[in-house]
């Protein structure tokens, strides 16, 4: 067992883990943050995307131990109390999901795209950027709409974003 410390959704966390424990396992089972979903175990689907030090990362590709000192944000850390993050609100407004299993990963990936590509995202950019996230249901169309709307709504919500990181 090895000790690890990190900040998850603004809260300092210290724990002992088996050294090869994946971050997604650590979040879901040890921290009981089950909003991050396991889809493929093989980094091919994107359902487990979280933010590590402000960047989108598939949490099945990172060991918990590699997150020593890191700032981790999960889907549970986005909303400000009852107030949804603008990207979450956009998914709600645009019916951006069907079964919803891929949704947490889509939302986390979407916020990452906005940070890298700005608030005015055309559909083409969104599609190219989301190639690593799959939805089987498949709500691709509404997800793209949600992200375009969410990206715009995130303008001026810098404070909220910071709070979320």
């Amino acid at each position: 067992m090895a000790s690890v410390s990190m900040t998850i959704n603004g809260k300092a966390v210290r724990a002992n883990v088996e050294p090869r424990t994946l971050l997604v396992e650590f979040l879901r089972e040890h921290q009981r943050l089950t909003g991050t979903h396991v889809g493929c175990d093989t980094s091919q689907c994107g359902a487990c995307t979280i933010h590590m030090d402000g960047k989108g990362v598939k949490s099945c590709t990172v060991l918990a131990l590699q997150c020593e000192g890191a700032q981790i944000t999960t889907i549970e850390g986005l909303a400000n109390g009852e107030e949804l993050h603008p990207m979450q609100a956009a998914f709600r407004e645009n019916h951006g999901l069907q079964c919803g299993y891929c949704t947490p990963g889509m939302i986390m990936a979407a916020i990452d795209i906005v940070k890298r590509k700005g608030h005015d995202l055309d559909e083409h950019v969104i599609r190219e950027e989301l190639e690593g996230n799959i939805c089987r249901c498949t709500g691709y169309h509404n997800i793209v709409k949600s992200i375009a709307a969410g990206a715009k709504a995130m303008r001026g919500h810098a404070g909220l974003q910071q709070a979320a990181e």
Partner: protein
Amino acid sequence: MNAHLSRRAFLQSTGALVVAFGAADAGLAQAPGSAGAPGRVLDPARVDAYLALHPDGTMTIYCGKVDLGTGLRIAIPQMAAEELGIGLEKINLIEGDTALTPDQGTTAGSTGIARGGVQIRQAAATAREALQRMGAERLGLAPADVVATEGEVRPRNGGAGIGFGELIGDRQFALKLDAKAPLRNPDDYLLVGKPLRRPDIPAKVTGTHLYVHNLRVDGMLHGRIVRPPAVDAKLVSIDESSIAHIPGVRVVRIENFLGVVAEDEWDAVRASRALEANWETRDTLVGDEALRQSMQAGPFESDEVLLKKGDARSALASASDRLRSEFYWPVQTHGSMGPSCAVADVRDGKATIWTASQGTHRFRFAFAHFLGLPEDAVRLIYLDGAGCYGMNGHDDAAADAALMSRALGRPVRVQWMREDEHRFDPKGPPQLLALEGALGSDGKIAAWRTEMWIPKATASLPNVPLLGPDAAGAKQPMGISTGLISQNASPPYGVKNVDVLAHWLKDAPLRPSNIRAPGKIANIFAVESFTDELAAKAREDSLAFRLNSLEDPRGVEVLKRAAALLGWQARPSPGPGGLGRGIAYVHYKDNENYVAIAMEVEVDRPTGAIHVRRVACAHDCGLMINPDGVRSQVEGNILQTLSRALFEEIKFDRKGVTSADWASYPILTYPDVPELLIDLVQRPHEPPLGAGEASAAPVAAALANAVHDACGIQLRTVPFTRERVRTALSGEGKSG
């Protein structure tokens, strides 16, 4: 969310339970073998099976159908609230719990609304009549002089009303469902037909929704299954010393069933990977490469004439110029995003199983059977899983969990690994069709024969045999189930001489199950592609060729509307090159939805890549309860079926499935998503039908027809891989 099973949730759900004051009413006796929670009426013929009104004016709907991400969770309350006259905010919905909800059949075949919702609507209409009678009596008015609205019975001419809660309160209706209870006039609808939002979306965007994957119960162990390297392998020996370094792991071995459990999930995962097991494998499978040939060789269960009109054989024999083509649809997986998962607690002669099953009621018998328990000691409770589109691994995972829980006397949660899901979920079966047709002197189709080679579903089988019990040597009904895969195999164009013959195969190459729009996608792929081949032979425009012979006005309308969305220009196919367009039509199951799909594609000749640019769909499912839900289902059908037609085939060798992940079984990703143009026909005075399947059926045919229009090749084998397109282009004009 740490979602411990909430006792409160259970109590809330039974909190409606009502003292049976009508105990003498024979209707309170429950249907045989359907013992439920105390006081619950489960007989699907009774109003109280579906609805309970509470003293505070709220209502619980008990629904045997479940929401698979499909929107039933808003649509069914819309139907019930509309019919009863109560606010949606007053409604709580319980789904798919064998102790609480009536058996309304599996959530399959696009029947959630058409059967499940319609039953609940009739229960609400019956309840409304009863409430109006009670209210009228209290108000001293005739029943005709009161109305039920906003949760009250009010005098028709105004004045104070009485709340439903006060009228029925703690009592049961003790009424049979009245098939004649009048329904509200659709012209007066306030809720039905509105794109109201699903109630489950907020928790799904905040990561707090209770999927079965997130359920934790007290004392629960985490389990993983150690799958054999080959189908039908025998477990010879295991070496437990191989996992001695992982603390607290226990092995569950029952004949050829092998699993591990641990307090910590990661320990279970590690142990399942590290455990050394020695298996005896055999080459029992035909393999994907030899599959197509093998289907025409049998062995066969039977031949069945599904349709015989006129004399197709003679008409074809005497035709001067007839066409014959073969179409093949491969084995495919449901490809759920999440690996299957379930939690089971089997102790003290009782079993409780939390499962994402599409058929909690249907599977109860099978679970009782292999657990050796009476059926009424087994309770299956539906919780959301990842979208499944037919029977994926959910029921198998539930059986795995139940076997291990019984062995250990503690609750066990089993989650499959991705590889388990791709390799072992029951698969959509392969289909092979041979079509023959000839034109008459009028340029219309004069004769048509369809021959199909398809696996036979075993009649009256309660389920597909479950993997875990099978390995464990437990008794269960053996057979196969594939859904109704022989439907929509004849042309809907008034052809006078038609034969449809099914050669039912005794077996399927891999354990099969129903997969979205079972059989109909492949059958329509064949029928509507072949219709285009005949249209091309007649040098007729594809749309006009269909409209010339189609009489059903609802069919004509969707064809015209889909074509109009795409800006269809009449001309024969193939076109001049460049952008190709194709169209296909289905009258789903010959008696349900009307759908037409038209699409535009470009084919990149050097690479063989098909780029789908625009897809237009006109969709008529009768009365739409929630157009937003219908639109999502239609979009999902189109994109998922494009994926299946363009990319998907399960590869397997003599031992087992080799397409074990998303790299070896690629599906549609964002860059391949076309523009979608969707036209939903609202028909308020027609019965409501489902939307979860029908629009999948014409997708592959429209795609093949568009490819033919673009470059002159007719693709008849799915998937339309780049290699297949290149091969077909090299022998242009011939089969693909």
